């Protein structure tokens, strides 16, 4: 009888162990959807052809305001600088890059719009730029966006800027398609179009490079909230990014980076933390 009892105890013990092991494995496998939080390495999409924001240097390094902000945010997420891979993206392919997982995060003059928010989750904005218009240096006839009526306006692929002019403000400019903003500027200089209208930070970078060959009309007409694009639904990642951006403004890094990249452009730089979009 005692023997039987001992055997029963053994079986109960085995069952208890089995339950305990089962519980442990349940507790360990509860990971959830992939998030940028907790990643050891990050692939960050940046522009390769926008001076001041994201530019690939001849030696292959990336440099610009977006690149520096990306490094800061990645550091706050616990990713070491040598574990960041910068991947060149364009306005046309940045959303697809996020969706197919070839990048984890995008900082590429990516304006937050309600339409894009249906496909991408945005942390930030980390800066609010303003859309303005650039013309050839000798062109004094265009003084505001409304003077683009009947003129040839660059429409960079994947960018939202030309929509602001022709759709939202219903200004009857002729759209001239281009692959990117560096293409737009090249076409502007060759006389193939009359104006490039996009964010002042982008225009300032080109203006610094081209000198008096171009002119920014200095009549800003929109608020462009530069977001940090991450995979749709990564709420934890979005919240972590927002905390990093808050810290960047609080510790003075944002002001220093803005001065570093745009201090000489004459743009009015806002050094207060922008109103976040919210992650939900």
């Amino acid at each position, binding site marked *: *009888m*005692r023997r039987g*009892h001992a055997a029963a*105890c053994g079986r*109960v013990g085995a069952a*208890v162990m089995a*339950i*305990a092991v089962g*519980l442990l494995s*349940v*507790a360990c496998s*509860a990971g959830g959807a992939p998030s940028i939080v907790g990643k050891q390495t990050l692939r960050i999409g940046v522009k390769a052809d926008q001076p001041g924001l994201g530019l690939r240097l001849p030696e292959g390094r990336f440099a610009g305001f977006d690149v520096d902000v990306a490094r800061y945010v990645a550091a706050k997420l616990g990713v070491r600088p040598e574990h960041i891979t910068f991947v060149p993206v364009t306005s046309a392919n940045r959303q697809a890059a996020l969706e197919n997982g070839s990048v984890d995060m995008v900082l590429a003059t990516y304006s937050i*719009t*309600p*339409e894009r*928010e*249906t496909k991408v989750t945005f942390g930030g904005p980390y800066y*609010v730029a*303003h859309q303005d218009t650039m013309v050839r240096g000798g062109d004094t006839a265009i003084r505001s*966006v409304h003077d683009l009526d009947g003129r040839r306006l660059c429409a960079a692929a994947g960018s939202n800027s030309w*929509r*602001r002019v022709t*759709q*939202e*403000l*219903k200004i009857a400019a002729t759209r001239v398609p281009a692959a990117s903003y560096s293409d737009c500027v090249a076409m502007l200089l060759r006389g193939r179009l009359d104006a490039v209208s996009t964010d002042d930070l982008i225009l300032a970078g080109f203006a610094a490079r081209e000198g008096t060959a171009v002119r920014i009309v200095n009549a*800003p*007409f*929109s*608020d462009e909230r530069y977001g940090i694009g991450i995979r749709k639904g990564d*709420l*934890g990642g979005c*919240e972590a990014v*927002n*905390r990093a951006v*808050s810290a960047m403004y*609080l510790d003075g890094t944002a002001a220093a980076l803005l001065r570093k990249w745009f201090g000489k452009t004459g743009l009015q730089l*806002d050094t*207060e*933390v*922008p*109103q*976040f979009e*919210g*992650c*939900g």
Partner: protein
Amino acid sequence: MLVKGTPSTPPQGPRSSLPTALLVRLGLQTTPGRIRALATVAVLSIAGYCIVASFAIGNARDGLRVIGHDAGPQVLATSDLYFALSDLDSQVVGLLLTGREQSLGTRQQALNRYGQDRATADRAAVQAAELSAGDPTDQATVRSVLDGLGRYERLASQAILLDEQANPPAGPPPGSVIAVYRQAADLMKLELLPKAYNLTLEGGATVREAYVAKRSAMLSGRLWVALAGLVMIAIVFGLQLFVAAHFRRLLNPALALATIGLIVLTVSAVRLLSGEAGHLQSAKFGGFDSILTMSRARAISNSLLADEGRFLLDPGRADTYSLAYLDKSQTVLYVPSGNLGEYYAGLSGAMKKYLANPRAVKFPGGFYGDEARAHSGPALTVVLTRYQQFQSDDQRIRQLAGVGDDQQAIRLLTGRAAGSSSYDFDQYDRAVVSLIGLHRGAFDQAIHAGDRELGRSILGSWAGLLPFAAIGAAILIVVGVHARLAEYR
């Protein structure tokens, strides 16, 4: 009931499978030694159970505290702060637009409301500061909002004073007034409102994180409590069987009582944790998420009203304010549209379909799209209907301004009577507030139920009951074993 008898025959020799020396050293070669050892293990298992259970219950308490009493209320206080600040700005815009033409908007009413907003902002800021007592960054942010509010008020008063001196007709005020107002507007838009809004979002993030962490801790805690309880009950029951077998008694009353007590304790603790996880879930999904969504919708809607006014006030920035108005409208309720004209049309089409069959319509995005997916109902229908009315007022205001009839546009914007945009906006805002109130009710109910159950057990709060019950069970085990061991002396 008890079968009295002599102790069983002297202890049998140790089992051959275990080294005798070890058994002797542990005192396990005799029956009293084994009983003592088993009783010790039983008491230790009770102590272990206690630790597991207090940890799990502590998680439940923390979850309720963060969501129900810290970050949750923080979201409400900071969104009140945002609303008051934004409304303050709308009143200043109204005052500057009406100029000397008192008959248009009633100036005194705008001034009164300005005063009310100021008081609401102060109250909400104090509350937000109290709630963020543990977070120095949040506290510093609240303080800097209050400092900024002081600067805003100086600039706004200066603009109003300049406007009174210029005594212009209704319409965009002189350039000097606009220049001063722009400083105030930028301060509001670039410093004060973002800080208040980010505090609301931070509260929301804190709640979400606490919910995810605490709820999973509660659920795994519940499993561990069940497991530790089972182990403890099995050991005490084993002790009972051992004593029964060796002393030929079916029941040892003290041990039986301890076993029953421990079963009741384990079952109630598991039920408590299930209940708490459930209350946390209803507080989050049934209340908090919608409170946050609707509070953000309310905040952004009020800045829509301010942008509408600034569009008339500052022609130099009219494009910026119009585009911001479109973006914000789409954030509130997303309707695919390239410009404001398409937005009005899209909204009207979507609303027609929605009113015909609220459950069948899925708005593709925006705050009300989210809310409709989570909790569609008559209160949301009222909100949406009034939002559409506000948007159709906006359409008329822009049409009037477009043909140069600023007088009519301003009358429509600033008037307080039924049919004016301000009146319709207030009606809309009331509907939003009442929907927030509904969710607040569900949230409070869930939090109170959680608090009540945590604080309620047969012997007072759960935290107090646990050690008491454990000591009681341990005493019963000692008493039950002691009587049997006495038979050996």
